[in-house]
């Protein structure tokens, strides 16, 4: 009897340590070699644009991309749509699947306008919509916000599971730029990454252009969760050394 309990205990410890090790692997915060990982030529600007374009083409011509984007409302939606149209050759390429998360109808409408108004091949991408409940209404009381946070947590988990399983095994990307709901989205993706052991969600967070000297609240949290943390002003590298700066992207 005593032996059985010991075995059980050992198994539990083993399982816990596997998931802990996995967590360390998944959370970029603990990746000590993070800055050494991209010493390749392209990120060091040693390669001409033409060659880079060809390399991109090599990747994207093989298999279509599955991307999840979250339209955060107002300025966040605006910046995300600008990113989509600036990088349309990759993100809105023919055959791609775009999973679009949104919480307000206005963002939904703006996104549809972007896709419809474009004269090129945007009709050939698959779009799937996922409605998220807002994490926090501005000026809500503490109890009210706590209740809404819990509701958001649960409903978004169901969405994320669905998106995760749709994207798994295909080239995929999670593109976030705020606001608060993005923290929950990133968290659930990471939780699934830990539980499923052999998958990574490829979360890219792009901090708002309005942020020059300090990170937003969402930025501070996503700094610990995102696989690639992008800032649009070089000054922010001082505050967030792990961040990458490519200039203005929106």
């Amino acid at each position, binding site marked *: 009897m005593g032996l059985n309990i010991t075995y059980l205990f050992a198994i539990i410890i083993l399982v816990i340590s596997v998931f802990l090790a996995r967590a360390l692997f998944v959370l970029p915060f603990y990746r000590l070699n993070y800055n050494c990982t*991209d010493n390749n030529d*392209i990120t060091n600007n040693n390669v001409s644009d033409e060659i880079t374009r060809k*390399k*991109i083409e090599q*990747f994207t011509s*093989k298999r279509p991309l599955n991307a999840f984007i979250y339209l955060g409302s*107002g300025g966040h939606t605006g*910046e995300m749509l600008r990113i989509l149209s600036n990088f349309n050759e990759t993100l809105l390429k023919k055959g791609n699947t775009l999973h679009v998360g949104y919480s307000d109808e206005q963002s939904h409408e703006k996104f549809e306008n972007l896709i419809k108004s474009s004269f090129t091949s945007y009709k050939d991408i698959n779009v799937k919509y996922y409605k998220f409940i807002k994490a926090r209404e501005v000026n809500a009381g503490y109890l009210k916000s706590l209740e809404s946070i819990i509701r958001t947590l649960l409903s978004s988990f169901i969405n994320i599971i669905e998106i995760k399983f749709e994207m798994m095994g295909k080239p995929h990307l999670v593109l976030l730029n705020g606001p608060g709901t993005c923290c929950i989205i990133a968290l659930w993706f990471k939780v699934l990454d830990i539980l499923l052991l052999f998958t990574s969600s490829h979360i890219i967070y792009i901090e708002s252009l309005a942020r*020059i000297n300090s990170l937003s609240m969402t930025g501070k949290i996503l700094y610990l969760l995102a696989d*690639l943390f992008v800032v649009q002003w070089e000054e922010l590298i001082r505050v967030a050394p792990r961040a990458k700066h490519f200039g203005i992207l929106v």
Partner: protein
Amino acid sequence: MKTIFVTCGATVPFPDLINSVLSSEFIKCAVENGFTRIISQIGNGYTDVLAEQVTKLNTVGDYMCHITAEELGCKSIACSFKLESNGLQFIAIEYSSKIEELISKNADLVISHAGTGSILDSLRLSKPLIVCVNDNLMDNHQQQIADKFESLGYIISCRATPSSLINGLVSIQGTTLKQFPGSRNITFEYKLVETSYSL
């Protein structure tokens, strides 16, 4: 028609900017610099306040607005009039759904609030831009962003007072602002692809 396009953003009204634009000093200066029309996006729900202000101005009675609500990208024109003293036309709309088209077709100069969206719209369309910071807003990001863009030489920044706006208008006539670079950053695009296609 040489046109100034004014945008206050869609959500938060910016009365100081509208008041400064409608001030007799600024209008005089604009006319002196050859402008004959001002089109303004005043923000949702500001029509009544503006209508009240306009009654105090001397306007031409039988003025006909030659641009349709359809062209302006809105359901209805909030107000439009022509000044008796110098013939300057003023057209106001609450919110335009095709602001980029409106700016690119009609504007020779843009005066904008300091929202990043509005700033980027004009810069991408290579229009000369005066950015007006709203002192009444609680966050100081707008000030920072205006200062930053001004220090880079892309815009002229000013405050929401007639005199500051006149200074901006005069100085923007004498300078050539720097061309804003495109945002299709190939290094970032490669990073996107590399991340997506990694394991």
